[in-house]
């Protein structure tokens, strides 16, 4: 190609000028209300033929029996009155559809993916399977057997052990602390699964997210089918917890690394400190250049990775640091984490670092808002807390405005080593 005269002007030591993000457009989905009161949100205007329907059921593992919730979720797409599991799967295959059943603590989300010409057909198959679910004893037995084997493998992983120990202690006193134990699998109960299915699925649809370019007839057909769900009448107990803080080490003989979880109760998006704390959390441990990564990975080489996160549920939130470190570096890692917490309490975050993190967060928000799928996820992430897309306008304003002093104040309030639950397994 022709040589550019501009080349002579290149001074590689000088960074190109940066432009700020001027504007991010947040677009709310279309919405309508199903017969049982659940909202249907719909996004269209895609650049391609993909489509997806996501059904949120009040069927999470925190509803008193995690084993029943887990088995019921595992058997949702497993045959109907006239078709067995294999025939249902074949029917989904014939329209080229994929599905995913994701069991969380608050709810269970079923996602169906297909080309937009096939999604309604895929949903019809799922609908038949869900409404006519048989829960045959031999299917339950098969699933229980597979889950047991998987559980035994998981129980060998220090990461799994540390995560469970962390949740059990942090969420102590709440239904969220319940966990499936290996022996629980032997008391799988078909009647309980059937009852759970009626209360939490057939009567448990909370919302539907639909994405794809469909004409109105297709939307009407979806709504017609979705109107079959009944109102949720199950009860959710009011949330209370009594975290067991302190330090616990779980000895796992032969481990080469320890998995670490350190954290404390916090809050979710509904709390006034949430946005400013997100900035503090990013500086501390939530991006590649964070204090934890710079110190514990990039300076000391103790770990392949370390990070901190705010975990949100519908009724609560918590703060957690996670890593896996060589056995010899475990104590030293604890010291460095404590040091980094105290440094944020004692010293103001330098202006340059603060500006960098602000720009980084706004860039990441721009990315999270890129395209209909991402935008619908952004919407769902606030809708679940009873908020709307204005949250992100506030997020931008607050991030731009937050000062080093404010962050120090939050560090003093929330990042006290003595108030942490400290778990290690290794």
């Amino acid at each position, binding site marked *: 190609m022709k040589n550019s005269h501009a080349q002579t002007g290149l001074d*590689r030591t000088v960074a190109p000028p940066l432009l700020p993000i001027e504007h991010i457009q947040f677009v709310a989905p279309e919405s309508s209300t199903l017969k049982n009161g659940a909202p249907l949100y719909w996004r269209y205007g895609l650049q391609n033929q993909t489509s997806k329907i996501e059904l949120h059921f009040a069927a999470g593992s925190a509803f008193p029996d995690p084993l029943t919730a887990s088995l019921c979720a595992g058997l949702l797409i497993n045959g109907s009155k006239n078709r067995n599991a*294999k025939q249902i799967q074949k029917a989904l295959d*014939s329209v080229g559809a994929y599905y995913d059943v994701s069991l969380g603590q608050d709810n269970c989300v079923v996602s169906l993916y297909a080309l937009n010409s096939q999604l309604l057909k895929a949903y019809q198959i799922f609908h038949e399977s869900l409404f006519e679910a048989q829960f045959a004893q031999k299917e339950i037995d098969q699933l229980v057997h597979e889950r047991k084997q998987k559980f035994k493998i998981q129980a060998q992983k220090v990461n799994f052990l540390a995560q469970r120990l962390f949740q059990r202690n942090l969420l102590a006193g709440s239904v969220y602390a319940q966990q499936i134990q290996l022996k629980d699998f032997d008391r799988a109960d078909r009647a309980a699964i059937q009852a759970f299915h009626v209360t939490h699925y057939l009567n448990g649809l909370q919302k539907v997210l639909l994405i794809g370019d469909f004409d109105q007839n297709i939307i009407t057909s979806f709504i017609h089918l979705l109107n079959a769900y009944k109102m949720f009448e199950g009860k959710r107990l009011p949330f209370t917890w009594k975290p067991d803080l302190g330090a616990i080490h779980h000895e796992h003989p032969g481990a080469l690394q320890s998995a670490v979880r350190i954290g404390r109760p916090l809050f979710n998006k509904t709390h006034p400190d949430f946005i400013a704390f997100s900035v503090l959390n990013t500086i501390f441990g939530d991006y590649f250049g964070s204090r934890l990564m710079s110190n514990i990975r990039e*300076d000391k080489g103790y770990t392949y990775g370390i990070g901190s996160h705010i975990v949100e549920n519908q009724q609560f939130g918590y703060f957690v640091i996670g890593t896996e470190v060589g056995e010899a570096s475990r104590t030293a890692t604890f010291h460095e984490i404590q040091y980094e917490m105290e440094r944020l309490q004692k010293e103001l975050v330098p202006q340059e670092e603060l500006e960098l993190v602000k720009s*980084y967060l706004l860039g990441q928000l721009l990315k999270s808002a890129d395209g209909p799928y991402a935008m619908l996820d952004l919407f769902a992430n606030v809708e679940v807390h009873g908020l709307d897309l204005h949250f992100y306008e506030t997020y931008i304003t607050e991030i731009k405005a937050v000062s080093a002093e404010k962050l120090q104040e939050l560090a003093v309030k929330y990042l006290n080593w003595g108030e942490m639950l400290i778990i290690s397994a290794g």
Partner: protein
Amino acid sequence: MIQFERFTLANGLRVLFHNEPSTPMAVANVLYDVGARDENPNQTGFAHLFEHLMFGGSKHIPDFDAPLQAAGGQSNAFTSNDITNYYDVLPAHNLDTALWLESDRMLSLAFTPKSLEVQRQVVIEEFKQRYLNQPYGDAWLHLRPLAYKKHPYRWATIGKNIEHIETATMDDVRAFFAQHYHPGNAILCIVGNFDLNFVKEKVDYYFGNIPGKEKIIRNLPQEPKQQRFRKKIISRKIPSDAFYYAFPMGGRMDASYYLADLLSDHIANEKTGLLYTELQRKKKLVSEITAYITGSLDNGLFVITGKLNPGRTFEQLDAALWQTLDKYTSRPISKSVLEELLLKMQTAKAFQDQGLLNRAMNLCFFELLGDAQFLNEEADHYARIQPAQLQHFAKAIFSKNRCSLLQIQAK
């Protein structure tokens, strides 16, 4: 169909540009034609260790990540046995920052003994975290040298053993850079809402004056055709016995690649595939089983792997597996099943192609294969497959004499 433009700089840098008007973001993806297969057998794990060093600062820029983060972007990379791929995703109006950073580290790295020391430790922890401290984590460290005797695929990207990483020196690092990191050995792809002339001007501005170098022609030892069945048994503290059957297949550009891909999808299909219905449900020999292909550039592997149920033996599984494969190859699959498989593939591809980064990586990868346009021709290759071809291929690949079997026994 992914539209793109292509141009080459005088120094040999191949550049692809894909215009996507709907996004405020941009991707700069740089693929270097170097992977673990290019390593010295006595210095394995080097391509991957080197990938870590690429974030340790370059000649004129002390820190790679900070300027990109300040521009609202982020970066990462991966190393495979074939390639090393770096990518930056950032707001489109700050594209310059990514090009400035990528061009400077292509020009020259600023290695320091400290950065080598730390990244060596980080990679050792990665080795433990991903391979040694996980149940079944070291399976591929044993399967590779069983299935490959000559070709450098006989070691994993992380390396043969930790010692190779522990003994890497500054001189090794410099030599590796000099040999593999230059414009002629790289492919750059830019995706975003830009004008072609703008992209040409920017790329030339940042990359144009990096000196070109002769591309070294790769001359790897090819794997001789396997003649006899191979087996290795190892014992580990794990809850269930595991098995890995590996069958040699062609490379990524071989016509049989598409057959192997479709075949693995078919026999491993959830709930309807033969491996599941016969071995997991009917005969209750396994608690899980699947099949996949490695998809490597040179001759790859078709793998069937799973875990035994308690009380079942490797011998029972072995007899039943061969019986199942025989049954599969005894008759061609129906036209309608083939159409279903293709529709599923088409759906999966439509979802993958949504992502900007995915498009950028794929364009670079296919350009490395010879022409980025191959990406748009993939679907036709699959669509041309006939049931009889698939059957014929399955018969040929599932040969006991050409099988390598790794068994991991519970201690």
